[in-house]
């Protein structure tokens, strides 16, 4: 009796994996021991990476986190809420410039207030969110292809504004430096030693980026599972039916754009901290398409999918570049070989988007689900 009571306190009964006896256990994201242990292992591996990898690979991992944040934002508006948005690059640019103005160094050419990261980072999310809030009523009136064109217009308007606003952006061609990553007075780029051991150069930055990424990813996952998330899905599936059922269309679409712009702004601000210099030309249509690729390849309407897609889109070009040495017809030097590395990367990019759309619409996440189901049912897989 006491035994079962003790076992039941956790909300699950040992030997009865599908029986939940508490709301907390039922609603947990990591609801099985397998999920908990594997997630812990993954987190530990990711935290250990800066100590094992060289500096450029650590930067690449940070870029993965940033693309994942951006991808999650786009997935919230396009995957969950069904509002096609090609304007992601615009919101990222807004976030990056907000952060740069608030957190950057002032020079003769550009503004900068040198504020702490604890101020510029949230503002880098809030300002684009407010702009998203302003854009949303327009977006709520149109659907599908027309919405895509409308958001595309945002990208071009944004590029023009960024080129003209020299005090903020430094102008086309020259650009400006990003915000300084100084969190609560601590310069994240400096070298630290803890417990007598010297940390690799960008380790602190990496850990902070990872922490921000985890918080935002869990928040998005919880959002997707909440009432608002279900409203998003209803609007995506059949918005008129959703309205008939009582889902407030305007409000839901507005919230989708606002939240997605928040994520995009934060991703943009962090991306330029990794790159080091941003020009107005960075925030172009191709960046929006990269994020669409992230969510299409990774998995529409899934958070894990966005993360997998981000890892794929960021790491694939590097893999191709590494393999180019071994494959004879891909050249790294100009003029030699049949194809250059960049040709191969671009071709693979496009080919994979098409392949995933046709063969596995649920993306990498769908592939993962297939693999997991196979092994769950093994040796009785079918």
């Amino acid at each position, binding site marked *: 009796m006491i035994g079962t009571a003790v076992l039941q306190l956790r909300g699950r009964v040992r030997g009865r994996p599908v029986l939940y006896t508490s709301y907390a256990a039922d609603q947990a994201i990591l609801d099985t021991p397998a999920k908990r242990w594997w997630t812990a292992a993954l987190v530990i591996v990711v935290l250990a990476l800066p100590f094992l990898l060289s500096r450029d690979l650590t930067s690449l991992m940070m870029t993965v986190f940033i693309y994942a944040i951006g991808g999650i934002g786009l997935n919230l508006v396009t995957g969950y809420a069904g509002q096609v948005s090609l304007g992601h690059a615009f919101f990222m640019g807004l976030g990056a410039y907000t952060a740069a103005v608030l957190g950057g160094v002032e020079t003769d050419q550009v503004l900068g207030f040198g504020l702490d990261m604890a101020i510029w980072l949230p503002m880098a999310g809030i300002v684009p969110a407010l702009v998203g809030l302003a854009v949303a009523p327009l977006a709520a009136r149109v659907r599908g292809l027309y919405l895509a064109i409308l958001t595309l217009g945002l990208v071009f308007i944004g590029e023009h504004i960024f080129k003209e606003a020299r005090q903020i952006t430094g*102008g086309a*061609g020259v650009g400006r430096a990003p915000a300084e990553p100084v969190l609560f007075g601590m310069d994240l780029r400096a070298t630290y030693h*803890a417990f007598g051991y010297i940390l*690799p150069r960008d380790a602190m930055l990496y850990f902070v980026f990872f922490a921000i990424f985890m918080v935002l990813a869990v928040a998005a996952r919880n959002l997707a599972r909440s009432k608002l998330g279900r409203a998003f899905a209803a609007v995506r599936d059949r918005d008129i039916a959703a309205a008939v059922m009582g889902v407030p269309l305007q409000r839901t679409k507005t919230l989708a754009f606002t939240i997605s712009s928040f994520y995009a702004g934060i991703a943009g601000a962090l991306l330029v901290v990794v790159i080091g210099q941003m020009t107005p030309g*960075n925030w172009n249509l191709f960046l929006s398409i990269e994020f669409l690729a992230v969510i299409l390849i990774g998995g529409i309407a899934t958070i894990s999918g966005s993360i997998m897609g981000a890892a794929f889109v960021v790491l694939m070009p590097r893999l191709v570049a590494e393999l180019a040495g071994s494959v004879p017809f891909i050249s790294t030097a100009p003029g030699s070989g049949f194809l250059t590395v960049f040709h191969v990367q671009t071709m693979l990019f496009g080919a994979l988007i098409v392949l995933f759309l046709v063969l596995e619409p649920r993306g990498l996440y769908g592939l993962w689900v297939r693999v997991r189901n196979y092994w769950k049912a093994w040796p009785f897989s079918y």
Partner: protein
Amino acid sequence: MRSTARRTAAVLGVVALLATACAVEDDGDGEAAEDGGTEEPGGDSDEIAFDVGVTEEPCPDAVNPDNGCIYLGVLSDLSEGPFAPVAVPITAGQEAFWARVNEAGGIGGFDVDIATYTRDTLYDPQQHSARYREIEPNILALAQTLGTPTTAAILADMDADNVIGAPASWWSGWAFDDSDQGLILESGYSYCIEAQVGLDWFAANVSEPATVLAVGYPGDYGGDSAAGVEQWAEANGAQFAGFIETAPNTIVGSQDAAVGAVMESGADAVVLAVGPAETGEIIGKTVVSGFGGQFLGSVPTWNPALLESAAAGAILSTYTNIAPWEGIDGTSAAHDAIRESLDGGVPENDGYIFGWVWSYPIKAALEAAAENGDLTREGLRSVVDGLEVDYEDALPPATFGADTNENAIRQAVINRPDEEGTLGLSTVEAEVTGETAEAYEYTSACS
């Protein structure tokens, strides 16, 4: 029992907080220790100290198998970017330069290798930054970093890594420590000075323009040049008709907007800071529409292929090219060496000469550091202040670290298109300076 999870979370949180609290900012002592590259941790070879980017093993395909190897990086635009047509010969010119240095015995007992760490960055700051981080553990310095925004993207990292570099650009900011942290070893004038010298020559030898116009790509190239044009107009009482911003044809499709603006401006002299294709289009279309003014083109506006285009006639009659040093037919010792390296051939365009001349400061720095017996990053960086560079007469000797206003190079070479000339240009006058350019207060970047 339920609180086990909470307890674990609490313990982890405390550990994280403790780690952060105990993390003390390091003052740079341990930097060299974690480079994790394949170099030897350090060593002495004939009393020269070295660590990162220098090895005792010979270079791959070494000219002098007994010498060690100094590795320099090249971050350029070699395939898809907007400057690939000129950047590929630039890199070729640099390789020829260092091959000549190696054949003469290398520097301080080391050959110099730039090919192993040449990376294509497509003129994109993100790629530039990523490739720089990739090659940084293995190089001593950068033999070439193409582009101003791209170099600015890695400047903070270069500062932290003590990596000096030679730019493949003529932005005025490289002459000032405020803008380049004393890391960038530029050669020749800047676009800003170029515009002023060009207009001075034009006023003295063709006609005094009452109205001047600047057309260019916004940013470090066209923006710098336009700042020079504006300066000149102010100093000479001419009217500055404005800076017409345009972009490469790959972005805007055609130069019709710029052509229209030029026609409307009524300018007597138009300074162009665009690419060769755009130059041909602007000159061709404006002259055909009856434009009466003349064109002064910045260095990168020329390509020999322009003389085979439809605008050739217009170009021959209205275009003058300004260059920082003589072209392939030049008379200096450097030019003799360039022609020798080409074995009587002709390069695709003047980029070959740019790359060659841009390499002299790095050679001077390496030689000075080797003489000091310190070929480490810190040693190399420390010789930049006060470094004297001999360009073998391609340019007057330059000194780095001295006051820019007094020491900046303010001379140019004026060329005109000539069907008989090699690479389509023939020199009209060399070592040209101008009143306005000489008098200009050069105390900070022009743009």
